[in-house]
C-alpha cells in the first residue's frame, strides 16, 4: 500500500529469537531435527504524519476522541484507512476482507518489541465496523497470553454483510501488558471495505 504522505521511518522493532535465554528442559521424545535458524525482522512502521506533506496531497489531519490521528481526504471528507500503525513498543493492524459473497472477515492484531519491552502476558482488544443503514458490529477479544510477542485474529471470525455500501472498521481500543510491566496501547488502525 503506498502512503506517499506518510513519514515512514524504519524502527528497530527487531525480533531476534536468539536474544532470549533458553533453559533446556527434558528430552524431546518425538522432536524432529530440523536445522536451527535465526530470524531477524526490521519492520517499517508509520510513526506519524507530516501535516504539510499531507496538505500538499489534499489531506488533513484530524484528532479523534479516542486519541487517534486520522488522515482525512479534504475533498470528500472521508477517512483514509491506516491498516498498520506503529509506535515505540511495536505495531498493530486492522484489515477488512471479503470472505464470501455474503460474509466479511477481518485480520487484526499486534506485535510487541519483546526484546525491549518483554512479551505480552495479558491483552484486551476491541474492534467496531459501521456500515450502511445503521449496520454495527463489535468484536471483543481478551485473555491471558503465555508470553507472546504477537497476537492476531487472522480472519478467524466472520460476519454477514448488511446492505450494499461502504463498511468502515477500526480498532476502537486495545492494549497488551508485557512481562516487564509495560502497557502498550494500539494506535487505532482502520480499514474500509466496499460491498
Amino acid at each position, binding site marked *: *500500500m503506498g502512503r506517499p504522505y506518510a513519514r515512514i521511518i524504519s524502527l528497530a522493532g527487531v525480533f531476534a*529469537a536468539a*536474544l*532470549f*535465554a*533458553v*533453559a*533446556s528442559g*527434558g528430552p*524431546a521424545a*518425538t*522432536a*524432529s531435527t*530440523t*536445522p536451527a*535458524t535465526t530470524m531477524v*525482522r526490521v*519492520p*517499517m512502521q508509520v510513526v506519524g504524519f507530516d501535516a504539510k506533506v499531507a496538505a500538499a496531497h489534499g489531506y488533513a489531519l484530524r484528532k479523534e476522541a479516542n486519541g487517534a490521528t486520522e488522515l482525512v481526504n479534504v475533498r470528500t471528507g472521508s477517512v483514509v484507512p491506516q491498516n*498498520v500503525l*506503529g*509506535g515505540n*513498543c*511495536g505495531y*498493530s493492524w486492522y*484489515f477488512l*476482507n471479503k470472505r464470501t459473497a455474503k460474509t466479511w*472477515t477481518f485480520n487484526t492484531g499486534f*506485535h510487541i518489541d519483546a526484546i*525491549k519491552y*518483554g512479551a505480552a*502476558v*495479558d491483552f484486551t482488544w476491541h474492534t467496531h465496523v459501521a*456500515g450502511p443503514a445503521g449496520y454495527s*458490529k*463489535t*468484536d471483543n*477479544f*481478551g*485473555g*491471558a497470553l*503465555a*508470553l*507472546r*510477542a*504477537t497476537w*492476531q*485474529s*487472522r*480472519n*478467524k471470525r*466472520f*460476519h454477514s454483510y*448488511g446492505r450494499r455500501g461502504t463498511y468502515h472498521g477500526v480498532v476502537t481500543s486495545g492494549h497488551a501488558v508485557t512481562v*516487564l*510491566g*509495560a*502497557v*502498550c496501547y494500539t*494506535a487505532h488502525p482502520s480499514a474500509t471495505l466496499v460491498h
Partner: protein
Amino acid sequence: METGPNRDPSLVAHAFEKHEKAFREATLPLYGLGPEWRGSRSIGGYEFWESEGTGGNSAGREYGMVHGDGHPDLLLDLPYLRIVTSTTDVLDSPLRSVLESEAEPPAGPEEIERANAGEEWDGPPPGAVQHTADILVDGEPVVFDALTRGPSWVARHGFGDYVITIEAQHFSQAQLSLVRITDLEPYLRGWRERRATLRPRS
C-alpha cells in the same frame, strides 16, 4: 503500539494469577500428551472472544496446553506442540488462519499487508499441504483435518461440544496420543518454569 516510561509489576502478577485461574476454572475439557511424553509441559494461554450487533451476538473461548521447549514466536527452532480445546464456533474459521497465526513465525507489517491483498482465505496457503492425521484421543483413533507447511503444522477435529486443535512446530505428527488432563499441577509448575526461561536477558 505505544507505551509510556512507567512499569507496573502488579499488572504482571495479576496477569499470571488470571492465567492460572482461567485453567483451574476451565469450562472445557483440557487435553495434553500422556505420561510417555517426558519433555516440558505448561499451560499456554487462555482467550475469549465475543461479537455483538447486527446479525446477533456470539461468544467463544479456548485453552491451550503447551508441550516442548519451543515457542511460536520467541524460540522458533525447538519442538513446540500446543493442544487447544475451544468452543465449536472455531470450526467455521479456516485452518489456514490457525497455521499462519499460531504455528508459524509472525509476519512483519509488510508481509501482513501483502497477505491481505488476496481474497482466498479458505484454501491452503502457498506451499502448504492439506491432509488428514490419525491421532489417538483417550485411546481412540480420530481422524483430524490437518495442514502442514515446512516445520509447522496444525490439525483440528470437532467432538460435539468442543473442538481440539493442535498447533505445532518441529514436532513429529507420528504416534501422537492425547489424553484428558486430570492433574493440572504439572502444567502449572511448568508454566512457572517457562516464565523464567522466556524472560528477556535485559
